[in-house]
């Protein structure tokens, strides 16, 4: 049975890869990412082994605990796409106990599982300081891997009933996107915090010592205790580790068994508030209706919500990073900072521009997100111009105020209020330019998006080759047509009055870009409705 399930999982991988070249690209990226992480683990392990051999075990305990948490979080994030979900076996006359081993192993077959196994093997370098520790670690390796796999399965199982509700799934998507956007920055902030606290080694030792007694790190704590010659703690931690795995298995198996006979049916979120203010805000015309629909989708569809969060969060995160890192950079550069002078202030000033750049995929892929629901526009005979204008209006109404707030916040933190018009000019000008170009090119290059109801992190989230080309075109537009607004904004750091020029130029350029984009895109759409519909209806 286990072999059958493993085969099933492998065949499903194979099919996805042969069906879409983008699946191959995603796989290659995942493998590269995993290799990078493994390289980092290998280097750290070797460095510690050579320079600070006693610290190795501490680092491994922390790494192991992180792996367990990582597996738990990741499995919840992707639980919507579980190919081996118990419900799929509900019709078969097979008892749960015969399915469980295969399902668990099936989850390990993949980039994540193989990378985890390799990482665990690499940690043996850290344990090689004493023979007993190395032996214990090698013997415990299966238990460590099992803990990772079970942590993922058990948490997803425990949350399954919540995840079956739309509100639960949407929440997971939002949390996942926030985590994804901020992952790199959180690591830097934590690392800075550790450095600020003082000696890294003693802190690492304290953290590892504490984690070794928790279910997260106990399986790695055993060899650590053995390396230190503390046999009694080692025995106790072994007990914790075994109990953890057993408990996780029980939670998961119980859930699996009950779902075989009482499958969880994905349910809805019930009634929603109608948000009538949106209808009052926008005119009762085709253009107004399309804008209102766009606005509702941006707040209700997790695929859109992820983008909205990205537009606001990215500039604020970079700003936060800037604030955290600021002190250390100054320390290291010493006098250098003073020489940068006003240029140093341009950074925070232009940060909201990042949000405007995130808008690129939003603007170009807006039609593609509709999928075959776009047929409503085709059937109603609404003009291409009205379609483009409605979408642009919907984006302006939401992203205009959001970007303005971002610009005000970043200016407030930098403290140079005289530069606010420059920041607004650069940001709003770029945003409008991006919306205009996106409107014009999307009838020709609608791009790919994840299907409605699919995970926003799944297939198609890269946007495809058309999105890449579109992004290049929009960057080109920003660098050429957007140059007057951005250039004057930068120059405003020395001559603040230029900020007002930037604001005027930005708004003027932006309005012109949107007008042109709506005209050109609308005309193209009127000629190409069926072709665009066919392109966006294709689901992968």
């Amino acid at each position, binding site marked *: 049975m286990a072999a059958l399930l493993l085969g099933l999982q492998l065949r499903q991988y194979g099919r996805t890869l042969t069906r879409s070249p983008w699946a191959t690209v995603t796989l290659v990226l995942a493998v590269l990412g995993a290799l990078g992480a493994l390289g980092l683990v290998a280097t750290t392990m070797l460095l510690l082994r050579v320079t600070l051999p006693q610290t190795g075990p501490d680092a491994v305990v922390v790494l192991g605990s992180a792996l367990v948490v990582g597996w738990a979080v990741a499995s919840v994030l992707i639980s919507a796409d579980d190919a081996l979900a118990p419900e799929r076996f509900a019709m078969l006359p097979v008892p749960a106990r015969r399915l469980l081993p295969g399902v668990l192993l099936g989850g390990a077959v993949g980039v994540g599982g193989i990378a985890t196994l390799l990482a665990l093997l690499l940690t043996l370098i850290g344990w090689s300081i004493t023979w007993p520790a190395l032996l214990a670690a090698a013997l415990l390796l299966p238990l460590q891997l099992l803990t990772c796999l079970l942590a993922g399965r058990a948490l997803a199982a425990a949350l399954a009933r919540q995840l079956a509700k*739309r509100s639960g799934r949407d929440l997971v998507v939002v949390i996942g996107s926030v985590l994804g956007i901020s992952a790199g920055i959180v690591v830097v902030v934590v690392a800075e915090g550790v450095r600020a606290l003082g000696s890294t080694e003693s802190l690492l030792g304290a953290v590892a010592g504490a984690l070794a007694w928790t279910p997260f790190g106990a399986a790695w704590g055993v060899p650590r205790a053995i390396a230190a010659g503390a046999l009694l703690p080692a025995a106790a931690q072994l007990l914790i580790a075994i109990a953890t795995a057993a408990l996780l298995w029980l939670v998961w198996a119980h859930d699996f068994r009950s779902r075989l006979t009482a499958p969880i049916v994905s*349910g*809805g*979120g*019930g*009634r*929603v508030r*109608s948000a009538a203010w949106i*209808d009052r805000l926008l005119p*009762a*015309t*085709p253009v*107004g*209706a*399309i804008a*209102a*629909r766009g606005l*509702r*989708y941006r707040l*209700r*569809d997790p695929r859109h919500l992820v983008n909205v969060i990205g537009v606001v969060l990215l500039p604020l995160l970079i700003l936060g990073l800037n604030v955290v890192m600021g002190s250390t950079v100054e320390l290291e550069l010493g006098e250098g900072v003073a020489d940068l002078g006003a240029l140093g202030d341009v950074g925070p000033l232009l940060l909201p521009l990042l949000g405007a750049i995130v808008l690129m995929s939003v603007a170009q892929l807006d039609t593609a997100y*509709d*999928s*075959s*629901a776009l*047929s*409503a*526009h*085709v*059937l*109603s*005979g*609404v*003009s291409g111009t009205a379609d483009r204008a409605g979408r642009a209006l919907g984006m302006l109404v939401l992203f205009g105020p959001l970007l303005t707030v971002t610009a005000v916040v970043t200016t407030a933190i930098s403290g140079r209020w005289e530069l606010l018009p420059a920041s607004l000019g650069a940001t709003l000008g770029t945003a409008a330019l991006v919306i205009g170009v996106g409107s014009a090119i999307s009838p020709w290059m609608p791009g790919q998006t994840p299907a*409605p*109801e699919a995970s926003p992190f799944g297939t198609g989230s890269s946007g495809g080759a058309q999105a890449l080309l579109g992004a290049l075109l929009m960057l080109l537009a920003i660098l050429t047509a957007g140059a007057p607004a951005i250039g004057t904004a930068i120059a405003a750091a020395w001559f603040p009055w230029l900020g007002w020029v930037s604001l005027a130029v930005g708004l003027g350029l932006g309005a012109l870009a949107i007008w042109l984009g709506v005209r050109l895109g609308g005309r193209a759409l009127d000629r190409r*409705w*069926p*072709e665009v*519909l*066919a392109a966006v*209806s294709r689901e992968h």
Partner: protein
Amino acid sequence: MPLAATAPPILSLRELSKRFGQTLAVDRLSLDVPRGSLFGLLGPNGAGKTTTLSMATGLLRPDAGTAVVDGADVWADPPVAKARMGVLPDGVRLFDRLTGAELLRYHGLLRGMPEADVTGRAGELLAALGLAEAASTLVIDYSAGMRKKIGLACALIHAPRLLLLDEPFEAVDPVSGETIREILRGFVASGGTVVLSSHVMELVESLCDRVAIIAQGRMLAAGTLDEVRQGQPLQRRFLDLVGTQALDAGSLSWLRSS
């Protein structure tokens, strides 16, 4: 039928063709739908019904041929032709992150209707189709039958003269099915025209006054119900035209053994 014989047809398809790769989905298909008829489009799975309706409504560009609605060419003058049609497509998504009421309002406003009319008609349609309770539930949480009904409401809201409905009764419960039949009969009695596709013979036989049978993208028979039936039950006539798939004597024998 003197009226049908003299007045120009409300929907006229001429030599429509569509090829997908190696498959000829629709092959020089011509069809006239007289004004005021309730027209049933019959065919087995994969016959080209949906492809034909898609080309008649502007969703799919034909390789060759024309589609004319009430004098307006669908592909030469889309705004005019589309304004006269109400369409329930099959196998496409709805804007399902809207509630039922919001979706109806959206379709009404897309059609350029005044807001007051949209609001009034939306309420009436939701009540008539038994969706009033679900008016503020997201369409994504509707059952398959409810989605058909809200799709039908969207096709009706601008009071078109011609309705093109692809599988309107699929997954719809018997009570709602009867409501829909009543709505369609009333619509036709007041001068409207309905074209619906189905593969449920009994339903077409009891509801439609004209039928066309298509298979493998070709028109096999078209006319009034009696012309097509030729004195036989519609089911029999359909099987004769389309051809049946006889089972070998030995095939699936293991299924009969127990």
